[in-house]
């Protein structure tokens, strides 16, 4: 007998699958059970199979498994799509009165519960409640007290009035009673409840909530799966804190709107997915070279191009690390769980302002569509600290002016971090530009100034590498010869996989990485393991490439970036210098 139960409702897009699934997930969460949800969906609005899956246990659940115990099937296709997950003893709930379901054949060994969902819903007040009838059936099958459903029905339908809520409660009970009376079957499931209080949220909501906690006041975005939930979460909430969401005409605009708000001093953010990141890349270098703090979320989905918009992939890592022409300092952070989406978003805002550069927060479809339970303390708002970096107080402006009283927004300080004044601050007026500029923010092609500014921008990154923690989360057996490394959302699946492995006597050490750049140096860990396996959701192994790159033996380097091409004689002498000293050379 498994400790966890896997439940799903499936049908056509437009059948209310998501909201029904969410009601059940919420009921479980309120009953003190852990929940981990996932979705199978196609991007068409109507037509096409879609399913909402819930895995629940009194213990934490961190991933999905290939086992389905109870399935509410609104269509034949729902059964077909899930045949590989259904097993002997699985319960399939369906409405045999539905013409398309009359010929449903219940696979050998499984239990079919034919319940007149629609008719019972009509008895309760309307056919529209058919899915809720099915939820009542599921409660009976899982021995889950139906009262737990009531609260989430109230939450879902409360704003439609008590009559609607009552009808829904009635619908659920009719379903439950029908099974009780009609099927004399002792189901093997028994969903315990506990006194624990959990909150249930998905990765996009966690990013949005993290943004609000971090003082984000401006969001601009253009709708795209699976990032839209971030914008929808913020809309209606950010206003409570004096902020605003602008739905832009495209992502070119979205990032520029956010850039403008950030220049005015707001903590600003935009979120998108691959195709939008491509467009935003145009402005990315501008954000970086003007040293503007900005948080950009990439909720990854399957690429390239429009790819598989509703499918999972971690394929954007290279784009985030290297996208954009020229050399652009940036940070890339990849939260590893839904809760981490919250924490890393807050951290991203602090990093952006402390180091005055763009920070990518990258999650993915699997985090975005997973609703997961957490103890509310995991989102402790008292712990949130806001660090705004070198924001110059009105009284200190003069100390950052040159001898002609001009403010120097790109002053090349020792740690590379320049002073920042917000518009409206007297004496702080300055320009900045995407052209290479001097310390005043004015265009220049002077070779020395160019070098100063490039160096200053990379010094910020060096400073950050020194001052901040860029560590990994470690799990498993620290002494194991087998080292698993992964990044982003795979953490939960790997941790559960380790339990399976453990049962088979295989112990592993697992490093879960959320910092992509800057990142931890894993040379020692990799060196000391006999077998190193890098796990990621893409074909090419982009993170694996990075790690291999990080642990390669070093080459010597000659670099030149003052705007003048290599000259043969100069180059020859530099090569000789390298050979003589082994040191890196900067022309």
């Amino acid at each position, binding site marked *: 007998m498994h400790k966890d139960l896997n439940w799903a409702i499936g049908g056509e897009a437009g059948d209310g699958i998501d909201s029904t699934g969410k009601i059940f997930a919420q009921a479980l969460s309120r009953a003190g059970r852990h929940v981990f949800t996932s979705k199978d969906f196609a991007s068409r609005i109507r037509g096409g199979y879609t399913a909402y899956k819930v895995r629940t246990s009194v213990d934490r659940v961190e991933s999905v498994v290939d086992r389905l115990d109870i399935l509410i099937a609104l269509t034949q296709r729902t059964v077909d799509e899930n045949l590989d997950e259904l097993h002997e003893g699985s319960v399939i709930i369906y409405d045999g009165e539905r013409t398309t379901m009359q010929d449903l054949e219940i696979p050998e060994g499984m239990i079919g519960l034919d319940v007149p969902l629609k008719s019972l819903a009509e008895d309760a007040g309307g056919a529209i409640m058919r899915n809720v009838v099915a939820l009542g059936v599921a409660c009976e099958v899982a021995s889950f007290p139906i009262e737990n459903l009531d609260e989430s029905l109230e939450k879902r339908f409360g704003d439609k009035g008590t009559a609607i809520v009552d009808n829904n409660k009635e619908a659920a009970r009719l379903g439950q009673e029908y099974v009780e009376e009609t099927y004399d079957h002792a189901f093997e499931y028994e969903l315990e409840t506990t006194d624990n209080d959990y909150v249930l949220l998905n990765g996009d909501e966690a990013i949005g909530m993290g943004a609000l906690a971090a003082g984000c*006041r*401006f969001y601009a975005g253009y709708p795209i799966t699976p990032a839209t939930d971030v914008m929808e979460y913020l809309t209606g909430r950010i206003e409570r804190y004096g902020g605003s969401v602008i739905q832009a005409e495209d992502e*070119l*605009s979205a990032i520029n709107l956010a850039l403008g708000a950030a*220049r*005015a*001093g707001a903590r600003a953010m935009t979120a998108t997915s691959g195709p939008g990141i491509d467009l935003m890349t145009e402005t990315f270098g501008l954000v970086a070279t003007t040293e503007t703090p900005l948080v950009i979320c990439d909720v990854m989905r399957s690429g390239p191009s429009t790819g598989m918009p509703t499918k999972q992939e971690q394929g954007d890592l290279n784009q985030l690390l290297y996208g954009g022409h020229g050399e652009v300092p940036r940070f890339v952070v990849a939260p590893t769980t839904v809760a981490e989406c919250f924490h890393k978003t807050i951290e991203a805002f602090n990093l952006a302002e402390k180091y005055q550069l763009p920070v990518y927060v990258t999650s993915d479809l699997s985090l975005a569509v997973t609703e997961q339970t957490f103890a509310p303390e995991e989102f402790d708002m*008292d712990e949130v600290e806001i660090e705004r970096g070198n924001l110059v107080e009105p009284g200190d402006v003069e100390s950052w002016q040159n001898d002609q009283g001009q403010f120097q927004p790109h002053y090349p300080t020792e740690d590379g971090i320049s002073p920042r004044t917000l518009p*409206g601050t007297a004496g702080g*007026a300055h320009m900045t530009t995407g052209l290479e500029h001097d310390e005043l923010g004015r265009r220049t092609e002077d070779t020395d100034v160019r070098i100063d500014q490039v160096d200053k921008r990379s010094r910020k990154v060096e400073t950050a590498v020194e001052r901040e923690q860029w560590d990994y989360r470690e799990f498993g057996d620290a002494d194991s010869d087998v080292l698993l490394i992964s990044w982003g959302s795979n953490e939960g699946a790997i941790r559960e996989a380790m339990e399976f492995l453990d049962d088979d006597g295989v112990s592993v050490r697992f490093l879960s990485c959320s910092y992509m750049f800057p990142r931890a140096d894993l040379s020692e860990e990799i060196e000391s393991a006999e077998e190193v396996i890098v796990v990621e959701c893409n074909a090419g192994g982009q993170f694996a490439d990075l790690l291999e790159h990080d642990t390669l033996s070093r080459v010597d380097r000659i670099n030149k970036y003052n705007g003048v091409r290599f000259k043969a004689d100069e180059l020859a002498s530099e090569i000789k210098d390298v050979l003589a000293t082994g040191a890196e050379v900067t022309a």
Partner: protein
Amino acid sequence: MSSDVRFTDFKSDKQPTWCPGCGDFGTMNGMMKALAETGNDPDNTFIVAGIGCSGKIGTYMHSYALHGVHGRALPVGIGVKAANPELEVMVAGGDGDGYSIGVGHFIHAVRRNMDITYVVMDNRIYGLTKGQFSPTSREDFETSTSPEGPKQAPVNPLALALAAGGTFIAQSFSSDAQRHAEIVKRAVEHDGFGFVNVYSPCVTFNDVDTYDYFRDSLVDLGEDEDHDPTDYDQATEAILDSDAEYQGVIYQDEESASYNEAHGLTENMADIPDGAPEDAMDLVREFY
């Protein structure tokens, strides 16, 4: 804001590298006058400049400013204003910047009606890239990339703005210094998106749309007592008139709410506490 601001306070110490005689000198002077005369000073003003000869204006003026990427100046300006409505925001760029690569943003900026000013320095040519045709170039205007003319109709920016629901649509001529400054000033004062298309001749690459041409052909609606800018039909007629070009405030809708007003944007979003908002645990509780 101090009352003793002079327009030269908006001048930076960088000498413009525009060709002698370029229309952009006059356009910039008018902008500085308009800003000073409306009680602004460099510390409360934010200028966003596009890319082009015109875009260099951000460097030659003194204020808070950002010189962005080609075509995207408007969204930056809108973001600045949304975040801090106290600031005076002026966006400036060329006809290529605004009506070609940035035309999508132009239309949506007009629709949004954010309370900012947009000055397009329209020389009917790509100046910075040395003389290719622009979206406002005449059909038969010969350039390096249109040896026989572009053979496509020029856009009518005023009509675009009208169709997109513009609330302030004006046109001026950089060498008519006084009128130009006056018109930009009214755009600044307008409570909404103040759009001014400024004829700002390129003396180097455009020998058709010259000072003489505009001087001879422009009709000043300010001198026409019968022109009522709040009259939509009159404005439409002037804007769609293919036989004449007009200078002045052609259309103004003083009734429509600006974006700031419609969306209740009044706060300076830069002011945030040093921790999460006080009631932030409510956000968590919503997920019970």
